[in-house]
């Protein structure tokens, strides 16, 4: 598990450099990526479903990113974009394409739909977390205005 964290940490670090994120945020973004991956691996073992695992992993990434963004006064994107990368279903896309080349359309349908659901799961996770944080901050602001 620790080795997995190191690998995903370094992978996210590479992407962080590619995306040119601010110097002081690189290590933090890599921590986000590593933690998200660990959550993904752990929930994959627990629930035996790639879709659920990606959803939980992306949720963790989004939550930590929102916290980091507020704590270190950076934009959320700086943490979310590199952090989400290890979860992106690149393997699923590849196997879908391979199935098309081999004209194996049954496999294409099963893997393709799973890949779509994984991408959807990641997306909904980010969507849910960021709308909830927005609602929380809005309600805090509303309270302030009442006082």
């Amino acid at each position, binding site marked *: 598990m620790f080795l997995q964290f190191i690998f995903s940490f370094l992978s996210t670090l590479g992407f962080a450099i590619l995306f*040119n994120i601010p110097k002081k945020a690189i290590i933090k973004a890599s921590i986000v990526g590593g933690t998200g991956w660990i959550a993904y691996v752990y929930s994959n073992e627990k629930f035996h479903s790639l879709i659920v695992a990606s959803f939980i992993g992306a949720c963790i990434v989004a939550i930590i990113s929102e916290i980091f963004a507020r704590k270190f006064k950076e934009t959320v994107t700086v943490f979310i974009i590199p952090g989400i990368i290890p979860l*992106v279903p690149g393997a699923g896309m590849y196997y879908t394409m391979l199935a*098309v080349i081999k004209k194996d359309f049954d496999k294409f349908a099963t893997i393709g739909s799973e890949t779509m659901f994984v991408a959807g799961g990641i997306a909904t996770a980010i969507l849910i977390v960021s709308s909830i944080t927005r609602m929380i901050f809005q309600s805090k602001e509303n309270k302030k205005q009442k006082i």
Partner: protein
Amino acid sequence: MHSSMKNILALAIYAGEIMLKNGAETYRVEDTIIRICHAYNIPYVESFVTPTGIFVSVDNKNNDTEAFTFIKRIQFRSIDLNKISQVNNFSRKLATSYLSVEEGMNILKSIDTLPKYPRMLKIIGAGFASSFFGLLLGATYNDFFSSFFIALIIYIAVSFVDRLHSNLFIQNFIGGAIAALLAILSVNINLGINIDKIIISSIMILVPGVAITNAIRDYISGELLSGVARSAEAIIVAVSIAVGVGAVMNTWIYIFGGI
């Protein structure tokens, strides 16, 4: 008053242009433009941003002055999260402390010309990103080395093609084709072992993760138009990678009868 309103608008547009050029979500760009205009006490601002252009109108609600409208077309987009974060901080700073328009313009200019990481570091970053991603998928150490070098070559090739102002399709097609070709070669010379893991990890640097995430974030904020535009971009990228990889693999199978 007349010219100063024009200058403020130019400042806001410039800030928006920097953000959009470097891959910010459209709602964030609209937000920044409105925040900058409000910081200079312009009462009426309306901005409409799509991934390919910015439209802003300002008016000071006097009957004797005319409203201004600017349009800015954005042609080339890349990803530079550092600049987005810097412009964001700049617009926050404007809200709390006063800066003259000239000072603001100078700050934005210095942000726009901010250096990226050195090319060498980015190339190695690409290698790191791919090869460690491969290990996550359970690749062996042989695969690790081959995907490291393949990612380096892909990154160099794609950034070379990018400098020729080619379109998205060609860039990702070439990236995918190189990935497949080199992966097959590396397995044939007994350097790599799992061909699929090498290909998957080396195309990771091309995969449109950012485009998808941004598209979703645009959808959430009700920016349906740019959400659609960005998802279309993501689909084009994904398809062109697949076409690149698929074309090479099919040709190889056709010529040599197997991988």
